[in-house]
C-alpha cells in the first residue's frame, strides 16, 4: 500500500516553551493501515495530530513531515476528529453540519447533497438532512462528526481519544466504521490509551514517552491494586433507616416528555462504593443532579441522609465532582483553591492550613500548593479539583465520569485515592461511568441503567 504520511526526525516546541513536546519522531503510515498512539496525559499525542494536520502554532520545528495526500502538502485530505464532540458540532441540522467542510472547500452547493448522503452512509448515521444535531445521542453525534470528516474524502483520518466519549456499544460501531474505511484504503491514526474493542482493527501500536519520543508498543498499564482493596460491606448489614441514599419508585422526565428514569428504586448504605453505569445519555448525570437537589424527580421518593435533598443542606456533607472538573477552578493558587470550601465553612485559620496540607498530601500534589491551578496539566488540574472536594471530608462523594480523559497512570492514582478515603474516612462513593468493566471488582454495588430502569447487582 502507498505511503500516506511520513515524519523524519520531527521535533516541535511550543512558542516560549523550554522543552520540545515532540522529539525526533520517525513515523510512516500507509493507506489502509490503522495505527494506535498512546501516552500519558500531556505527553503530546494531540500535538502530534495537530502537527500532521498543520494546525500547530508557529513554534520551534525541526525535521520533515512529508504528506502524500490528494490535497498536496497543505494537509488537505487529512481528517481529524478531536476529543470533545460538543465543540465540534457547529451547525444545527445534520445536513448543514456534514456539509461544513465542503463549504470551506468551496464545493458547489448542487454537488453537496449527494456527497453528504454518501458520508452519512459511510458513518452509519441514518438521519435526514433536517435532523436536529442537538437531539442526537452521543454515539450519533460521534458518527456525525466522522461523517463531517469523511465527506471531505480524507486519505488519513486521525481520531483523538474515542474511548473517553463512547460507551462500549459506540466503540463497537466505531470499530465497524474503521474496518470499512481500512478496506476502502483510508489510513487511520487513533490517539488512545484504552482502545478496548478497537484493538481488533489496530495494526501498529506506538506511545509517546514523557520526553516526547515515539516508542513502539502500547503504553504500559500500571499494576492495578483493585484486588487488594475489595468491597467491605455487604449491602444488607445495616438497617434501612441508616441508608445514605434511598430511592423509591422515582421517575424523572426529560426533554419532550420522555422519561429518563422510570419507577427506579435502590438504596445505598453508608460506606458503600457504588458504580452507576449505563450507555451515553442514559441519565447518569441526571441521577447525580437529583441526588444533589438541583433536579426534582417527577414521581417517587428520593432521600439523601434521610431527607429530601436540598443543595443548601448538603454543603459540607456531600462532595460532587462533575464531568471536566477543571472548569470550576478559579483561585490564584492551588492552596487557595483547595482551601475555598473550608473558608466557606468558616474553619479557623490554623485548622484550615492543616487540613488543606493534609488533603494535598493525600492527593500527592503538595508540591503544587503555591502554583496557579490554571498553569497545571490536565491530570494535575483533575487532582486539584478532587482535592478541593475531598478537603471537607464529605460523607457522600458523587463523581461523574472522573476518569474521562485521564491516562491509565493518573486514573489508577485517582482510584487508589478514592479507595483510601473510602476505607479511612468511611466515605460513601457513587461513581458514574460509561466504562464499568474495570470497576466491577472494586464496587460493592453496581447500578446499571437500561431503558430508563435500574438493575442492581
Amino acid at each position, binding site marked *: 500500500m502507498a505511503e500516506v504520511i511520513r515524519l523524519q526526525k520531527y521535533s516541535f516546541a511550543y512558542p516560549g516553551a523550554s522543552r520540545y513536546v515532540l522529539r525526533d519522531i520517525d513515523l510512516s503510515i500507509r493507506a489502509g493501515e490503522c495505527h494506535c498512539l498512546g501516552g500519558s496525559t500531556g505527553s503530546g499525542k494531540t500535538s502530534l495530530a495537530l502537527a500532521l494536520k498543520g494546525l500547530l502554532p508557529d513554534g520551534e520545528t525541526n525535521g520533515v513531515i512529508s504528506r502524500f495526500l490528494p490535497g498536496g502538502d497543505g494537509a488537505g485530505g487529512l481528517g481529524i476528529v478531536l476529543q470533545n464532540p460538543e465543540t*465540534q458540532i457547529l451547525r444545527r441540522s445534520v445536513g448543514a453540519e456534514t456539509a461544513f467542510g465542503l463549504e*470551506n472547500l468551496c464545493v458547489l*452547493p448542487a454537488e453537496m447533497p449527494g456527497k453528504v448522503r454518501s458520508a452519512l452512509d459511510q458513518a452509519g448515521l441514518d438521519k435526514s438532512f433536517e435532523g436536529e444535531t442537538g437531539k442526537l445521542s452521543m454515539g450519533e453525534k460521534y458518527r456525525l462528526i466522522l461523517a463531517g*470528516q469523511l465527506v471531505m474524502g480524507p486519505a488519513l483520518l486521525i481520531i483523538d481519544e474515542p474511548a473517553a466519549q463512547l460507551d462500549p456499544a459506540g466503540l463497537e460501531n466505531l470499530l465497524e466504521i474503521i474496518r470499512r474505511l481500512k478496506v476502502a484504503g483510508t489510513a487511520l491514526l487513533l490517539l488512545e490509551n484504552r482502545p478496548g474493542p478497537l484493538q481488533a482493527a489496530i495494526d501498529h501500536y506506538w506511545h509517546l514517552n514523557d520526553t516526547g519520543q515515539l516508542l513502539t508498543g502500547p503504553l504500559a498499564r500500571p499494576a492495578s491494586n483493585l484486588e487488594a482493596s475489595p468491597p467491605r460491606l455487604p449491602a444488607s448489614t445495616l438497617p434501612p433507616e441508616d441508608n445514605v441514599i434511598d430511592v423509591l419508585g422515582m421517575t424523572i422526565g426529560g426533554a419532550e416528555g420522555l422519561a429518563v428514569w422510570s419507577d427506579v428504586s435502590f438504596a445505598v448504605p453508608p460506606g458503600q462504593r457504588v458504580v452507576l453505569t449505563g450507555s451515553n445519555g442514559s441519565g447518569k448525570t441526571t441521577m447525580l443532579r437529583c441526588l444533589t437537589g438541583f433536579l426534582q424527580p417527577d414521581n417517587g421518593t428520593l432521600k439523601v441522609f434521610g431527607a429530601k435533598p436540598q*443543595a443548601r443542606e448538603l454543603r459540607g456533607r456531600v462532595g460532587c465532582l462533575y464531568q471536566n472538573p477543571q472548569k470550576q477552578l478559579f483561585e490564584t493558587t492551588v492552596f487557595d483553591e483547595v482551601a475555598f470550601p473550608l473558608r466557606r465553612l468558616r474553619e479557623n485559620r490554623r485548622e484550615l492550613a492543616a487540613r488543606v496540607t493534609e488533603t494535598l498530601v493525600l492527593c500527592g500534589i503538595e508540591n503544587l500548593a503555591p502554583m496557579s491551578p490554571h498553569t497545571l496539566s490536565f491530570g494535575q488540574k483533575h487532582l486539584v479539583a478532587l482535592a478541593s472536594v475531598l478537603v471537607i471530608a464529605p460523607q457522600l462523594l458523587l463523581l461523574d465520569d472522573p476518569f474521562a480523559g485521564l491516562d491509565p497512570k493518573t486514573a489508577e492514582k485517582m482510584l487508589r485515592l478514592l479507595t483510601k478515603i473510602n476505607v479511612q474516612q468511611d466515605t460513601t462513593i457513587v461513581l458514574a461511568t460509561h466504562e464499568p468493566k474495570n470497576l466491577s471488582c472494586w464496587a460493592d454495588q453496581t447500578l446499571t441503567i437500561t431503558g430508563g430502569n435500574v438493575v442492581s447487582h
Partner: protein
Amino acid sequence: MFLIDSKNQQKDYQIRKASKVSLSRYGRSTVWVWFVVALVLSFFAFGAKTPVALTWLSGGDIVLFAVHRPGHRFIRRMFKVVCWQVGLIVTLYCLRFGVAEGLLSGLTTSWQLCLAFLPGAIFIETVPEHLITRMLTDVMPSRSAFVLATCLNFIPMVLAEAKSIYEGQVLRGARILPKDLANPGNWAEMLNCLVVPMMIHSMKLAQEIALAAKARDFGKKRGRTAWPGESDS
C-alpha cells in the same frame, strides 16, 4: 498569470452565483422580513415608556410567537429567564427607590427588557441556523457571518456549562444560591466563583471551536459556499 486569475474569478463567480440562487430559492427574503420584524419590535421596546405602547408591542410579540411557534423547551427556558430578570430588576428598583415607587417602575422596566430581547430570541430559536448564516452573508464577509452564527449557536451550550459550574461551586460551599444572593455581601462571590471560571472556560471553548472549524479546513480558502438547505434532500 492572467489566465489563472481569470479562471479563479470565474470559479468564484460560479460559487457566488450558486450560493445566491440557492439563497433565493429557500426564502432569503422571508428570513430578512422576520429579521427586520424582530429588530423593529426590539428597537421600539427600548423606546416604549407607557403601558399602552408596551401592550401594543406585546401584541406584536404574541403574533411573532404564534407564527414561529417555538417549542416547549424554549418556552420553559424563557419563562425561567424572565422570572429571574423580573425578580432581580424589581428587587434592585425597590432597594433604590423604595417599594411604593420601585415596584411599578421595576415591573415596567422588566416588561420593556423582556420585549426587547424576546423577538431576537424567538428569531434565533426558530429560523434554521444555515439560513441565518446566509442572511448574514449578504451584509458581511462569509467568514464573519459563520463566526457570528456559530456564536449564537453555542449560547445554549455555554449556559449549560454555566449551570454545571454553578452547581459544582454551590456544593463546594459558594454562597451563590438565590437565598444567599439576597445578601449583597455575597454578590462578589458570584463574580469570583461563577463569572471568572465561566470566562476562563468560555475562552477555552472558543479555542476548541476554532480548532474544530480549522480541522475542517475553515479559512483555507478565501471564500465559502453555502449548504443549499434541507429542501434539497
